[in-house]
């Protein structure tokens, strides 16, 4: 499932929703990305996105993860709008029978959405606003997956 929203999310509630009315899950991994204040340099961060394409791209990334890994459930929640240091930005959750698939899929989802989902961060600090630049290592992290076999893991 994917959600693009202005509102905050509650990791505990999302896990409870994934686990509800089933007992075949053995492992749940969550990744929470938050606004990081670098020594007071960030007063606020505004996330712009491309409505329509964002949802489509996140759905494609999630479908790719479900094809690659033996997942029982997956969730991507991404916020947009103006956030403050410490605020949540993104949540990825994966559930599987075994921990390997849950860990790998969560990392895959994060690596892919970092380079595919159409969001742009603008930091507002004491010295003005600046658009955050993409990092080469995020591209490298995504590229790593195309070298690995796409076989389903147990």
């Amino acid at each position: 499932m994917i959600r693009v929203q202005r509102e905050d999310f509650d990791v505990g509630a999302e896990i409870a929703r994934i686990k509800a009315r089933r007992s075949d899950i053995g492992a749940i991994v969550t990744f929470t990305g938050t606004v990081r204040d670098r020594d007071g340099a960030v007063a606020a961060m505004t996330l712009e996105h491309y409505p329509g394409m964002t949802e489509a791209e996140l759905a494609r990334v999630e479908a790719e993860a479900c094809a690659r890994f033996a997942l029982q459930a997956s969730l991507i929640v991404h916020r947009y709008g103006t956030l403050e240091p410490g605020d949540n930005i993104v949540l990825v959750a994966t559930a599987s029978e075994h921990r390997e698939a849950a860990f790998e899929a969560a990392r895959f989802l994060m690596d892919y959405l970092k380079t595919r989902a159409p969001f742009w961060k603008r930091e507002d600090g004491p010295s003005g606003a600046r658009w955050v630049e993409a990092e080469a290592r995020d591209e490298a992290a995504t590229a790593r997956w195309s070298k690995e076999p796409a076989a389903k893991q147990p």
Partner: protein
Amino acid sequence: MRLLYFAWVKEKAGIAAEEVAPPDGVATVAELIDWLKGRGPEFAHAFARAEVIRAAIDQRHVRHDAPIAGAREIAFFPPVTGG
């Protein structure tokens, strides 16, 4: 076709969305960028470093050599920085 601009491409171009009808010779994303650059100093500025600009046709990422024939919506933006 409808053009969309995001983040600093939008700020530099001074516009978020517009309808355009490029001439017949404009067949690819790269050629569309070249055509846009000739429309005024804001666009020349926004697309000055064309190689860093990313494009999407009908909400899918495409490369600059992608054909634009049949596109309803083309978007231009910097490399994404979500997550």
